[in-house]
């Protein structure tokens, strides 16, 4: 009998072990009494200070690249030591939250633009509004980056734009030439873009047949981003004006989703690519599978890097960049990227501000941009020849005025995974895995996604 009891206990323990793991949060006690040190005294500034900084793997060698960029800052401020910690995007979400709740936070952290409102709403970030003058004032930054530094409806700035992830159209010049497409004009509007895709579809370059457009579908980080300019271009938006209801199922948004997804139905977009991720799609574009793809500024860097690594197979001279096509309700360019924020718990506010001031300087913006491939956030940096004179990046500069970010509300970041789920189901419909494609089903999926997202916005 005793043995029986033991075996049953053992069984229970096994369950608890797994259940325990699956929901164990950092079990630290809450002692996050804010110790804002705005009034850090002057004399302290010369004492040795260690700044803990969290960054994401923005570049090839994240830690080294970051330290290289801030080298001049460290030389200028010998009393400041910067200790960077690279946290993976996948776990960053949890770590940033845990830091916000446990009080054991770094001084400065990188935050995705869509996270600022959410983390700020946890009362974890220091208000940086009083320090903006140190960064050259709000007008020093691209206008489209600024909304993501606040919680919509408030004017307190909790973050400083650091770099911009923006998307544009990459096309093969040789394919356009053979197909008779003029990249200057034919990618300008939705209709001309579609016509151009029709011409480009199946075009043979170097004995290889190309598909007009290659895009990742559902298995990707960018599912929602890749829909954004189509939804905006059709006059739709993600959230209602009162910020309480998801409008991803509005007739306009539906039009945008339909236009974009039906490119695959019409055979203009590669169907198998819809289960691949962005990195795979970019690799296939490099290998000459697609005539066009939408990608970010970083892809220009990938192409240039490949040209150095493998000059024979490089496509660097064959690729051009065009602006996002203009929809019936205007041209809207996706603007994401990252910001820098300071945790409230920091004891070195002045030094943190100094570091951010350096990181938003023209020199650091360009140097870091060269390493991670994304675009700078300050206007000044766009005047640098690195952007201005570059045939690919200058297009990003040109379209920056059409930049648009997601609504900066606390509920946005949580709702994104729900929107992604809904849009993934839309792709399932397009791929015909649950029966033939039916636009009505797209509408049903968008309704469901809107209901989910609205529940999040209203709970907040």
């Amino acid at each position, binding site marked *: 009998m005793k043995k029986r009891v033991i075996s049953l206990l053992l069984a229970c323990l096994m369950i*608890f072990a797994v*259940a325990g793991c699956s929901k164990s949060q950092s079990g630290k006690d809450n002692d*996050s009494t804010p110790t804002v040190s705005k009034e850090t005294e002057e004399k302290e500034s010369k004492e040795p200070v260690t700044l803990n900084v969290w960054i994401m793997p923005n570049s090839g060698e994240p830690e080294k690249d970051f330290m290289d960029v801030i080298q001049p800052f460290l030389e200028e401020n010998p009393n400041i030591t910067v200790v960077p910690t690279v946290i993976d995007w996948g776990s960053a979400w*949890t770590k940033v939250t845990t830091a916000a709740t446990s009080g054991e936070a770094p001084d400065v952290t990188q935050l995705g633009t869509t996270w600022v409102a959410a983390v700020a709403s946890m009362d974890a970030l220091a208000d940086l509004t009083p320090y903006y003058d140190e960064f050259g004032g709000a007008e020093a930054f691209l206008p489209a980056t600024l909304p993501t530094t606040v919680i919509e409806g408030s004017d307190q700035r909790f973050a400083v734009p650091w770099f911009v992830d923006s998307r544009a159209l990459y096309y093969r010049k040789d394919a356009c030439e053979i197909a008779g497409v003029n990249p200057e004009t034919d990618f300008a509007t939705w209709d001309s873009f579609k016509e151009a895709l029709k011409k480009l579809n199946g075009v043979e370059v170097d004995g290889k047949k190309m598909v007009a457009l290659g895009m990742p579908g*559902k298995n990707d980080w960018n599912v929602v981003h890749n829909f954004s300019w189509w939804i905006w271009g059709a006059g739709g938006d993600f959230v209602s004006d009162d910020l309480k209801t998801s409008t991803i199922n509005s007739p306009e948004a539906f039009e945008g989703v339909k236009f974009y997804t039906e490119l695959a139905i019409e055979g203009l977009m590669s169907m198998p690519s819809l289960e691949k991720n962005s990195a795979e799609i970019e690799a296939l574009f490099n290998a000459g599978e697609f005539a066009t793809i939408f990608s970010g500024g970083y892809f220009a860097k990938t192409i240039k890097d490949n040209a150095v690594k493998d000059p024979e197979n490089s496509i660097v001279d064959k690729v051009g960049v065009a602006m996002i096509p203009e929809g019936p309700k205007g041209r809207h360019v996706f603007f994401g990227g990252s910001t820098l924020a300071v945790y409230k718990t920091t004891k070195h506010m002045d030094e943190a501000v100094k570091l951010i001031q350096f990181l938003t300087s023209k020199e650091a913006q360009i140097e870091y941009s060269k390493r991670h491939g994304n675009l700078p956030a300050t206007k000044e940096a766009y005047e640098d020849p690195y952007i201005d004179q570059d045939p690919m990046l200058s297009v990003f500069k040109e379209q920056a005025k059409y930049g648009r970010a997601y609504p900066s509300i606390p509920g946005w970041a949580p709702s994104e995974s729900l929107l992604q789920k809904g849009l993934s189901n839309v792709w399932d419909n397009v791929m015909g895995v649950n029966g033939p494609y039916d636009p009505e089903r797209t509408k049903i999926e968008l309704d469901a996604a809107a*209901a989910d997202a609205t529940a999040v916005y209203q709970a*907040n």
Partner: protein
Amino acid sequence: MKVEISREKVVSKKNKKTSRLIFEIRKNRFAYALVLPAFIAMLIIHFIPMVQGIYMSFLKLNQFTLNQFLKAPFVGLQNYYTVLFDKSSTLRSGFMDALRNTIIYALSVNILVLVIGMISALLVNRKFKFRGLARTLLLTPWVVPSYVVGMLWGFMWQQDTGIINRILVDWLHILPDKPFWLSGPNTLWAIIIPTVWRSTPFIMIMLLAGLQNIPEDYYEAAEIDGASSVQKFRHITLPLLRPIIAVNLLHGMITHIYSFNIVAMMFGHGAGFPGKWGDLLMTNINRNSFGIWQMGTGAAATIVVMIIVLSIVGIWYRVFREDLVVEE
């Protein structure tokens, strides 16, 4: 008078019992001391977070109250109501899909793993050349970390370039067109098969150990009685392996109901939504708690799953009760 005596008797019996217990503890003091560190570690790593988790399930713990952690507002059973009855909760949309998928997934993985594990254990239990090599090779899938399994199979299942469609369609011509494996109902296969691939070796080695414990004489005796190999398997091997099968069945059920890694990694390396036919309870709950910062409802949902699993353990215990008694 009688009453008095019996009361005294009871008291002395009680005293006797306690003193015996103390004596037992004293006698085994050294053993207890050795177990103590592990006990404390288990307490800290498993038990305390578990109790916290249960407590969290009664709190309104979302992105605004997260910094209060355990001091977040107490809402009683509201999270459970949200999980079980609130039709508008995000957890509910897709929960039934996830539940259905988890049931199909856990059952089929368990059955397949046991059958294939048994067959391969029987095969490598025979004497043949390169037996050691065969055993090692059969064990390799088990060495691959589960998230790597998810990523690798994610590539293999791809519709156009994946090796599986190449074999099925281009080389063997079993199917007319290349199907999508990572979308639609096929997704269930796409998650079951890699899990079976990875879990079988463990079961195989457990069964193999069991097989080697069965004395040869049983089989010899059966042979003299003229038993066929099927009869030998049914009447000797299977009954003697029952305790091992029982334990592995339970372990497998628990592991696969709580399965996460393979499914999470297979769809866009952790980025994608596994879809209506690939989403499991754990991926669903993860998305709806960590993904949207609803830790309270997430904890409640996990507790609900835990209760389901506990009742499965109860059923299991009734079925295999006899096999768990070790005869002394």
